[in-house]
């Protein structure tokens, strides 16, 4: 019986079998294999990347994921929808808002609940704050792979400053413990937020410009990890990865949620499809996030932040959020007593890990780390 069968007991350890996994047959004497991981250098998440290579040239790359599979979807079963939020925040730590927002959205759709306008605006601001610290850390890590040391330090410092702003605003550096189905747990005072970010903006602008003017950095990015538009479309790429391959899709403007229907979202797109295009899309998204937060904080109405929600039996709903890494979906099914019967999670990293190997086959080892950093994926969200 598969573990997600409703009759399967939640605490029972699944009987695992170690079946041999299949890799494409490779002929030739010079081909070597490299299992890289699951414990990798530095502080990284666990995953194994399996390579077939000759010298510097990679013939085939096979990511072996799900070392971190925790069975999170099963954990939702039987919980009250309120506690489900706490769990959703912990599917992917650096995507706490993306996941909990999509989850709350799904529960609200299922139960026919309209959240108050102010709650929608605050959710928008929180989602953009999450994008901001994630993207800034992304640049720090990318500079690490291109050995731009000052760039690395500055990117990580700016991410730290954003996390501290998050902490001061919500009490959590990861913006946790604030969302709940029906709105927000408590009201937030966002009046000082634009000034704090305004003070940070010149630093961010200088930093991003300096990277775009550094030849050694750009040399490693341009033409690296090319993802053609057709492949991106066929394999279901999402988020900045997809937009860097010329597909202009963004849930914030295509299917608005929270307060995005009242705020014009500018969706940056690049056609090159290489690592440089992926960083350019993220650069523009940082500026757009700053602008969105400023506009949302300016327009935000006064009012309640929570509307009563009654958990109707047997209700079903779909919720979504365009997180820093792309589209996050939750599908929620409530049981007869208004508790969670089944929750399905689709995280952006799950989609993009599928796309990623297509940019690694027939490239070289030297570019691998840079290419992986330019995708900016998490394991936790994918593995669940």
């Amino acid at each position, binding site marked *: 019986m598969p573990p997600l069968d409703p009759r399967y007991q939640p605490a029972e350890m699944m009987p695992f079998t170690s079946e041999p996994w299949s890799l494409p047959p490779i002929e030739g004497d010079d081909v070597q294999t490299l299992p890289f991981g699951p414990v990798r250098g530095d502080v990284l998440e*666990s995953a194994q990347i399996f390579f077939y290579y000759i010298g510097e040239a990679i013939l085939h790359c096979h990511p072996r994921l799900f070392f971190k*599979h925790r069975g*999170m979807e099963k954990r939702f079963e039987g919980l009250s929808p309120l506690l489900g939020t706490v769990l959703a925040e912990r599917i992917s730590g650096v995507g706490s808002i993306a996941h909990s927002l999509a989850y709350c959205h799904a529960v609200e759709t299922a139960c026919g609940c309209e959240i108050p306008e102010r709650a929608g605006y605050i959710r928008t601001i929180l989602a953009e704050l999450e994008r901001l610290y994630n993207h800034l850390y992304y640049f720090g890590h990318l500079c690490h792979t291109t050995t731009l040391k000052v760039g690395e330090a500055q990117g*990580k410092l700016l991410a*730290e400053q954003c996390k501290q702003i998050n902490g001061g605003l919500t009490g*959590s*550096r990861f913006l946790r413990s604030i969302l709940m189905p029906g709105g927000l747990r408590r009201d937030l005072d966002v009046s000082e937020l634009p000034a704090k970010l305004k003070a940070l903006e010149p630093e961010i602008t200088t930093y991003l410009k300096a990277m775009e003017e550094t030849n050694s950095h750009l040399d490693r990015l341009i033409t690296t990890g090319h993802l053609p538009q057709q492949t991106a479309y066929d394999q279901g790429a999402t988020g900045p990865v997809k937009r860097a391959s010329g597909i202009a899709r963004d849930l914030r403007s295509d299917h608005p949620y929270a307060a995005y229907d009242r705020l014009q979202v500018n969706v940056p797109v690049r056609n090159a499809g290489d690592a440089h295009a992926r960083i350019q899309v993220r650069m523009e998204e940082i500026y757009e996030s700053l602008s969105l937060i400023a506009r949302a904080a300016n327009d935000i109405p006064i009012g309640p932040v929570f509307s009563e929600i009654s958990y109707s039996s047997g209700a079903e709903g779909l919720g979504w959020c365009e997180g820093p890494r792309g589209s996050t979906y939750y599908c929620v099914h409530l049981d007869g007593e208004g508790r969670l019967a089944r929750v399905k999670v689709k995280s952006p990293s799950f989609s993009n890990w599928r796309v990623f190997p297509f940019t690694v086959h027939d490239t070289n080892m030297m570019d691998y780390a840079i290419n992986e950093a330019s995708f900016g994926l998490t394991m936790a969200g994918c593995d669940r």
Partner: protein
Amino acid sequence: MPVWTLYGISRGIATAAGPEQDGAAAQPGVLGLPRYHAERCQENCRACTDVCLPGALSLQSGESGERLALDYGKCIGCQLCTESCPNNALTKTEDWAFGVRNREDLVWAEALKSAPAAEVTRKIKKYFGRSLHIRHVDAGSCNGCESELQALNNPYYNLHRLGIFFTPSPRFADLLLVTGPVTYAMRGPLMETYNAMPEPRWVMAMGTCAVSGGANGGGYSCGHGIQEFLPVDIYVPGCPPNPSAMIHALLLLLNRANQHVQGGHFAR
């Protein structure tokens, strides 16, 4: 390249003030684990236990009816109990330095035991002086703990200045720092990493998942923390622990900081 050097210098010093005996400063406003005021707790009330996902709060039957039991080793700091308690018996705090040497110190106890076990890691100083090399293993975390561990190397926390480094190979490591509840697939790699480390070696459980399984533990492919598999020297609950709490725990291991939590009571 000289442009970047100049750029770096022109930013000035970004590093926070050095951690004194009590560890580095946490940020104001960042919430830590809740504090329990037993005298305000009302009998036959289940408001907090009903909203506690990881089971950090539970009711234990004692001599005079049911009593609330609190285990910080399971607390994920979701703040739901502080918001649901009708009598403010559980309050929000900014307590962050929750690293302890004994697991029992995370369980709230009415009366404090006399002497804390401070001598357990005293010998570590003999071996290492003040420096430490860490091998981190992610045994199935949500990436929150990794994000904060990565933050330790940013210019603000600048862990290097304390003589503490992350090392790529377990062969060079003194401390195995584990995050996550230990998933089925990570058991093998975790044990192999531990076995590859030279002795003497130490183990730190970082984050509530590694301490007890937290919100994630106990499913069909997930354990209840690392103490089922490895001898743990320092436990650090928190979801995730603040980077300052991580620094405090590392200094606690090296006997360069004091333990603040005893019998579930936090005191500076």
